[in-house]
Structures are given as structure tokens and as C-alpha cells.
């Protein structure tokens, strides 16, 4: 069912600049009955066709117009991934509004900040939990907010706040308006400009308050051309197409998920399958068996740890098979890493033996059997983890980018993979390392318009000659590939004056299935130390096997046996680093880190400053 994309369309005459919304309209005209979304509801995957999706987008757009959303007004979405997210996002773009997404884990204080900073006029709160985060505060806290639309009515129906509106009523309003004012949305779409801001993507804010990066229609087009349709990215150069399946599970407010699900869908016509919840991702992966899969390192680490635990729990024969299989995988992984990600004759032979015995079934169980392109990004990942998946025959590529350049920076291309690097810059983009600081800088049409209402912050982000400062320090590997050293501001300078990149050490620790979090400390100190958080599942399993009783996370982390276990991981890591970079002491983090408690950002990145604040005693006890 691959459609010819170059065909002129009936509506082409009165088109404005192509936006994500107009691309959906084009698909709805081209393949109205093609499946585009699946959402698991009442135990089965309910399907949406392109024409259904476009119909809903049009209704939602009319509803927004009826609620006085004008060109350039902001609509905020506070919800887990679900079709309504996409419908509203596309509807807002269709009427030249601006969408901004909030993370479901954002606590009340951040919701207040984000709604007021963006000046959102319409706010979509998924359910009672999210509605409460707004209604908790007095109405005059949000001067610009006029309507709160809720999708799940449970518990909200009895609320009397006049700003509340049920999703179905919202859509009904849209349908009525569509009859009354037909053509209004189409007219706005025809007037779309490349420079229209389509979305505000808030940076995760590891340091200061989040800043809303303004992305335009032109930015989106550039990301689609450069990333999704780039040549040589996927094996066999088969671009994403309507037969591809994607599992949508990372927050859609993040630029990576937006690119690798929504924008991939609108540009290639592939199918988005919504995971039920973050807890069911592994199950949903198995059901959907996606062909394109983007994950953050945390997810890759979890899948890896899950495989390790389950293999340990298997019966004797299966454990022996697993030993052989993992041995083969290790060999294949190493061979491929040494060969740019390609098979060698010997590794192909090993794969030929291992695939029917072990790999195929294992990939099926974790849901990546049909994956033809998978990637890790948004944070650094330990090379060992990628090597493991490569060894299983899963094509995994590390890539790099940031919100401010719509993630157009570097990627590992098929057949030219270098492990430990984030790959090569996309062809024909402005990409350089600052000669003095080695900071990565980019300049291309994908670079954002600036931070919403923060011109001074915007100015700080650009060099004098107009290059975007990413804040990441990189270095060239073999003059083609780029390795990320660390965030510029995270680099540690010890009291001895040595520069140390903490994330490299942290990732090496986190490559162990037992370690979930690690924070390396040492700025202005005599030696390097670390705060370590264990992975409850794996360490709990390990302790149970050894008959070590435990009650809570904290209790488990303070068991002498567990500390010994972590010490072993730390020692193994230390062997890889120079003496000054070695961790001399570590302490266990006494709780599981959490976004709502402020130790992590919404994207599960460590907030170093608040960590130091919270666990200052622990840190000081080491020095």
C-alpha cells in the first residue's frame, strides 16, 4: 500500500506552506482507509483510519476557533500519549496556533509555571489528576487560561468550575461549528507560513526553570527532510513507509518522540500504536513488534536488565542455551562493532547458528524481532548496552540532537556505526566544534527561532556569527564521527585541576544491570566520589536468590552484601579510567529518585544541583 508521494493532489491548488496538519490532510485524501493509529482499549487495539483522524482534527480545529483561539495563541496539553494528544496538536497547527506539551509527571508548581510562561489559552488535562493540578490553585493564578478540556470524565463530572469542558462536548462544538463555518480551517491552513511557530518544546531544565523553545513549520520540514528521510540511515535505505509500525510511549511533549512518532507518521504514513501505559511498554512492544523504535538509554537499560533477570530465572537447560546464545551475541557484537556495525563472514555464521537457537525467540519476547531501525538518544548510553543489542541482531544506532536544533545534528548511519560516538553530522548541515572550547555548534534551517518570551536567554544561546551553542562538548573520532564528552557545565574540575567528564563514568556504572542511577561528584574536591542508586528489580532479585531478606529500597541498599556488590561494579568501572577519574568512595542513595520530588527532570535526567542539596550530608560524609 505504498502510495506515490509525488502525485499532485486535488487540494494542492490552495495550499499554504506544508505543515504537519496539511500532511495529514494529504494522507487522508490519498489513503482515506489506511490505518494510522491504534490505541489499546478494552483489550483490543482499536484502529483509526486517516480519514477518521483528519475528520477529528478538523472538528477539533473548529472547536478551537469557536473557543477564540487566534493565530499565535497557545494550547497546552497535559496528558499521557493518546490519540487525543495528536488530534489536538494537529488541530492547533492547522489553525496556526501553538501547541505545548506538559509531562504527565509535572507537579502543580511546574504546571503553574509552564501554563503562565507559555500563556496558554486552552488547556487539555487528561484526567482528574491533571485537572486537579490546575484547579488546586485559585482561578486568577492563570490569567490567560479560558478553558480546561478534560478527556477522562471519571471524577471530574461533579466539578463545577466554569472553565471545565468535556472532550466529547468540545468535539461536538467543533462539529457544529464545522457546519456553520465550513472552510474556516481550510482558509487558515492555506495561509500557513514557514515561519509560523507550531510548538513550544520546553527544555527539561536541569539547571534553571524550563525554557520554551519555539519551533516553526520550517523547522519541522527540515527535521523531516534531514532525519526521517535521510539517505543511508536505515539498512537497505528503505525509508519509513505505511507498512511501518511505531510504538508511541515516550512523552509526546519531548522533541524526540514528536519527531520519531508524530512527524514520522505525517511524513511517511506509518502507523502509530499507543502504549497503554509506561508500565505496559514491554508487553505492548511484544504485541506490536514495531519496525521503527526510538528509546532513551533508560529504556534500553531496562530491557537489558529484564533479559538478564529472566534468563537467570530460566530452567537449567534454558540457562545453558542462554550461555551459548549470549556468548555468540557477545562475539557478534564485538565483531560488528569492529566492523562499523556490519557483519563479518564469521559473525554472520555465528548469527546463522544463534538466530534459530536463541536470538529470534529472544527478540520476539522483547518485541524487537521486526525492528529494522532502532535508536538511542536524548542522553548518553553505555556502549556495552548497545553492543549487546547489536549482538542480538537488532540494528541500533546512537544519535544526537537537541530541542533547539530539532534534533538535527548527528546520527550513526547504517554500515558506518562507531560505538561510543553519536555518529556523523547529517550531510549538508552547518556543524562545527568550537576551536577553543570544543563545544558543538550547529547552523541550519532546523535551528529554533528562540526561547518564548526570553530574548536575552535566546541571545545567550547563539554565537556572534549566528551558530547555535549546544552546550555539549564533543570531539572528533577519526575525523568523521563525533563523540560527546559531556555537558559543558557538568564537567568536573578537581582541586588538583584535572578535567573530568562525569557522564562517561556514570554511564559505565549504569551499564551494570544493578545500577539505576549514578552521580559522580568531585568539582573542587580532592578526589572523585559517587552517589549510587540501585535498580530495585535486579538487586531485589539478586538478594532473594542469596536469601538476603529486605524490606524497602533503602533497607536493601544498605545491606553490606549489596554494598559489596556495588563496590564490585565500581571497581570494574575504575579499571577503565585513569587514576584521577577513579571513584574513591561512594554512598548509596537512600530513595528511588523521582520527578515529583525534584531530583529528576521530567525526562528522568538528574538535577545535579538539587541532588547536591538533598543529599548534601551524604556527599560531605565522604570527604
Amino acid at each position, binding site marked *: 500500500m505504498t502510495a506515490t508521494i509525488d502525485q499532485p493532489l486535488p487540494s494542492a491548488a490552495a495550499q499554504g506552506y506544508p505543515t504537519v496538519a496539511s500532511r495529514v490532510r494529504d494522507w487522508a485524501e490519498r489513503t482515506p482507509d489506511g490505518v494510522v493509529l*491504534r490505541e489499546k482499549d478494552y*483489550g*483490543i487495539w482499536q484502529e483509526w483510519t486517516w480519514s477518521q483522524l483528519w475528520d477529528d482534527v478538523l472538528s477539533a480545529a473548529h472547536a478551537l476557533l469557536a473557543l477564540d483561539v487566534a493565530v499565535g495563541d497557545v494550547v497546552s496539553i497535559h496528558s499521557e500519549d493518546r490519540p487525543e494528544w495528536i488530534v489536538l496538536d494537529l488541530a492547533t497547527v492547522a489553525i496556526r496556533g501553538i501547541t505545548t506539551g506538559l509531562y504527565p509527571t509535572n507537579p502543580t508548581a511546574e504546571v503553574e509555571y509552564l501554563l503562565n510562561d507559555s500563556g496558554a489559552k486552552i488547556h487539555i488535562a487528561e484526567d482528574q489528576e491533571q485537572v486537579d493540578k490546575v484547579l488546586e490553585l485559585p482561578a486568577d493564578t492563570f490569567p490567560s487560561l479560558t478553558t480546561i478540556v478534560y478527556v477522562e470524565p471519571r471524577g471530574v463530572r461533579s466539578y463545577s468550575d466554569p472553565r471545565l469542558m468535556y472532550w466529547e462536548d468540545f468535539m461536538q462544538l467543533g462539529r457544529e461549528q464545522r457546519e456553520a463555518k465550513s472552510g474556516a480551517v481550510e482558509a487558515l491552513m492555506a495561509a500557513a507560513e514557514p515561519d509560523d511557530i507550531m510548538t513550544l518544546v520546553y527544555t527539561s531544565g536541569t539547571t534553571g526553570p524550563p525554557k520554551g523553545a519555539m519551533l516553526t513549520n520550517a523547522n519541522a520540514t527540515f527535521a523531516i527532510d534531514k532525519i526521517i528521510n535521510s539517505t543511508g540511515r536505515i539498512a537497505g535505505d528503505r525509508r519509513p513507509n505505511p507498512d511501518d509500525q511505531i510504538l508511541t510511549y515516550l512523552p509526546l511533549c519531548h522533541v524526540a518522540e514528536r519527531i520519531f512518532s508524530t512527524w514520522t507518521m505525517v511524513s511517511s504514513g506509518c502507523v502509530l500504536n499507543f502504549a497503554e501505559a509506561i508500565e505496559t511498554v514491554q508487553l505492548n512492544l511484544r*504485541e*506490536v*513488534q514495531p519496525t521503527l523504535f526510538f528509546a532513551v538509554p533508560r529504556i534500553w537499560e531496562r530491557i537489558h536488565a529484564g533479559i538478564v533477570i*529472566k534468563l537467570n530465572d*530460566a530452567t537449567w537447560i534454558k540457562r545453558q*542455551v542462554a550461555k551459548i546464545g549470549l556468548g555468540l551475541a557477545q562475539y557478534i557484537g564485538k565483531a560488528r562493532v569492529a566492523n562499523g556495525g556490519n557483519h563479518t563472514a564469521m559473525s554472520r555464521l555465528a548469527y546463522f547458528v544463534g538466530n534459530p537457537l536463541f536470538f529470534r525467540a529472544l527478540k520476539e519476547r522483547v518485541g524487537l524481532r*521486526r525492528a529494522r531501525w532502532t535508536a538511542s538518544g536524548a542522553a548518553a548510553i553505555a556502549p556495552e548496552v548497545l553492543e549487546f543489542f547489536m549482538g542480538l541482531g537488532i540494528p541500533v544506532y546512537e544519535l544526537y540532537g537537541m530541542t533547539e536544533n530539532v534534533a538535527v545534528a548527528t546520527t550513526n548511519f547504517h554500515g558506518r556505526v562507531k560505538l561510543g560516538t553519536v555518529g556523523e553530522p547529517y550531510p549538508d548541515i552547518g556543524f562545527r566544534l568550537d576551536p577553543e572550547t570544543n563545544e558543538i555548534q550547529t547552523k541550519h534551517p532546523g535551528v529554533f527561532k528562540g526561547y518564548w518570551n526570553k530574548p536575552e536567554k535566546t541571545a545567550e544561546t547563539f554565537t556572534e556569527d549566528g551558530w547555535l551553542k549546544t552546550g555539549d562538548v564533543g570531539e572528533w573520532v577519526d575525523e568523521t564521527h563525533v563523540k560527546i564528552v559531556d555537558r559543558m557545565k557538568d564537567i568536573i574540575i578537581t582541586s588538583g585541576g584535572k578535567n573530568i567528564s562525569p557522564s562517561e563514568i556514570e554511564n559505565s556504572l549504569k551499564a551494570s544491570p544493578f545500577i539505576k542511577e549514578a552521580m559522580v561528584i568531585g568539582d573542587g574536591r580532592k578526589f572523585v566520589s559517587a552517589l549510587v542508586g540501585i535498580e530495585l528489580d535486579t538487586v531485589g532479585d539478586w538478594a532473594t536468590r542469596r536469601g538476603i531478606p529486605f524490606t524497602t529500597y533503602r533497607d536493601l541498599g544498605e545491606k553490606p552484601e549489596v554494598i559489596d556488590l556495588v563496590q564490585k561494579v565500581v571497581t570494574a568501572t575504575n579499571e577503565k579510567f585513569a587514576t584521577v577519574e577513579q571513584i574513591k568512595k561512594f554512598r548509596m542513595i537512600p530513595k528511588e529518585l523521582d520527578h515529583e520530588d525534584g531530583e529528576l527532570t521530567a525526562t528522568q535526567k538528574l538535577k545535579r544541583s538539587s541532588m547536591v542539596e538533598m543529599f548534601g550530608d551524604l556527599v560531605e560524609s565522604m570527604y
Partner: protein
Amino acid sequence: MRGRPLLYVDYNKEQSLFPTIAQKVLLAIGALIAISVPFGLVPGFKFLASPGWLQLLVIALIFMIGAAGLNIVTGMAGQISLGHAFFMGIGAYTTAALSGSSTEALWGMELPMWFGVIVGGLVAAGLGILIAPTAVRVRGLYLAIVTLGLVFIGQHLFRNWNQVAGIAELGRNWGPFQLSLWDIDGPTLDLATDGEWFGFFLPGQGKAYLFMLVVAALFLLLAKNLARTRIGRSFAAIRDRDIAAEVMGVNEAKAKTQAFAISSFYAGVAGGLYATFLGFLPPEQWSLFLSVQFIAIVLIGGAGTVIGVVLGTLFVQLLPRLVENFTGFLSDQIADGTWLAPIADIVIKTGSGDFGVLSLDAQGAGLSIFQANTVLYGLLIAVFLIFEPLGLYGIWLKVRNYWKGWPFTY
């Protein structure tokens, strides 16, 4: 979606009777083999075309219907019933009264067999509905005892109601095993005598086999289908926890009544067919032993599954034949004086002075083959309940899950 067996996009696919292509292919192959049995065409199965084996297989097919019925009430709805033989007897004697020939001492209306069998099933179902309320009151072992009582009431009734069941210990004749629309004299399908079908010469048992194959397949499919209906789901809910089921809105009394009614209908039909096929039966036939045999089928095969019923019936029905062949084999060993002879001599008893566990003649110490079978059923029920509560199907399930979970264990 191709290649994604777990991605269900509609309910029909999720709850289809035979969801995978492999299952459909296996079913088709199984059906082909089953159909070809009386024609003696499939190599390796040719011996089954003899009248003796066919007779055994027809009985097995009838037992499958009866077992499918017990499986509904015990396997699906979790209500232990030892009264299955009673319901079979009710079906059998209703059939006799309707389709048997009348004499001075016996009732018989000489109506066609199908009518008798169906009404037999309905009468049994009616009695099942009468019994069901006790199942709402008592559970588990107590229900087993209540239903056990039915068997003894039935025995008493059948023994003394001579107009229907014939003279005690002697029994009566049933109507002819044939299909006709209404006129009993001109059978549309004669299933009892030898003749030519589809260009093949078939013994009467062969014809009966083909007929029973169709009927049994129909009943088994209906039973399998029942499991995915609202009624079937209410049975499962009652079985797993009746109080929880009621909280969810399942009407316990209604569900149990339905389970007993459907189960008894199956039993009645099976009883009617069984008696008509054999032609002559004494009232002792409908005893506790028959009930235990059905319990054995359901438990050995795998409670709650239709494939378990098929496996269990074949196993339990073919077991006596196996024991028979085994003792025959052993006595041959003794006669030939091979190296197995000493062992065989201990196991079987050949003469009156000889020692042996199994005796070939029915006199003196030692178990007869029939008794040996009974002991074996008891042993097998105990062994399966302890070691493999899901029965033969459970063994298959374990094997399948072992590979399904590969390379993990769960």
C-alpha cells in the same frame, strides 16, 4: 497484522475458536484422518477399519459427548457431579420409551431414534434443572455426595420400573440404530447393517462411526463455543470464585442451573445414543462406575478444555483394550516360554492354582481385567490430580509453554 499474533484489532479474532493457522491445519488433518478411518485408507490406521475397533471407536465418540457434558458442569463451572450416569440413564430410558418397540411388559412408541434421543436429552436437562438448586446450597464434597445420591435413586428406579427398563438384571431392547424422518419402517439412513456407502463397502459399525463422528463433532464444537459466550464466561467466573462472580453481577443460581441443564442435556443425548447403539442394556449399566469413568475422562484429559475431553475419552476407552492386549501378550510369553515368562507368570494368573495379580478366568483370587481397569482408573485419577491437575492437556500445555517461553521460563 501479519506476523504479529498478539496484536488483536477486533474481538472476533481474539476469541476465534481456532485462532492460529497451525491449529486450523491440525484440525483439518485430524478431521481427514478421522473420516478416513472406516475406509481403511490411511497407512498405519488400517487395522482400525475392523468391526471390533470401529465398535470401540463409536462408543468412544458417544462417550465424548457425555464427557463434554460433564466437562461443562465440572470443568467449566467447577461443580463436582457424580450423578452423570443417572442423567445418561434418564436419556437412555426416555429414548427407549419413545423409540423402542412395545411389548406386553414394555412401553415403546416406535418413534424415530433422533426424536427419542433429543427428547431424552431434554428430559435429562429438565431433571438437571431440578437438581441445580442444591448446587447453589452445597459445594464441593457435599455436592458430590448429593449427586452420588442421584445414582442410587436412579438405580432403584430403573430396577423397579420394569415397564420402561425391563426386568431387573435383564434389561430391555432399544429401537433400531437408524435414521429416518418419521416412518420407522423405512430408514433413510440405516446405520446398523453392513452396506455400501460412497462406493465403499462398510460394516454397520463403519456407518455408525461416520454418523457419530458428525454428531460428536457438532456437540464438541458447541461445547467449545459455549466457553466463549457470556454463559460460558459466567461458568468460569463461578468456578474460580462464586462470591467474586456474584459481586461482578453473575447470577450464581442462574449460572449453576444453566450448567446443570446443558450438562444433563449432553448426558441424556449420550445415554440415548449409547443404549440405542448397543441395542440391549441391563439397568445396572447406569451405576457409579459409569460416573467415575466420566470423572476419569474429564480429569485425565484436562478439566475445562474440549481437547482434553477428546484425549481423555480416547485414553480411558482404549485403556481396557490395552490392558487386554497386554495380558494377552503376557500369556503368550508364558505359553512360548520366553525370557519374559517368569515375570509374566507373577503378573497373571493362568490356572486356579497359580498365583497372579491379574486373572484371565473370572474365578478365585486375582483381579479380572474389568477390575484391573477399575483399579487403574482410580490410580490414574489420583496420579493426575496430584501431579498434573490439568490432565493430558496440561502435559501438552507444559510442553507448549516450554517452547513458547523460549528462551525464558516465564
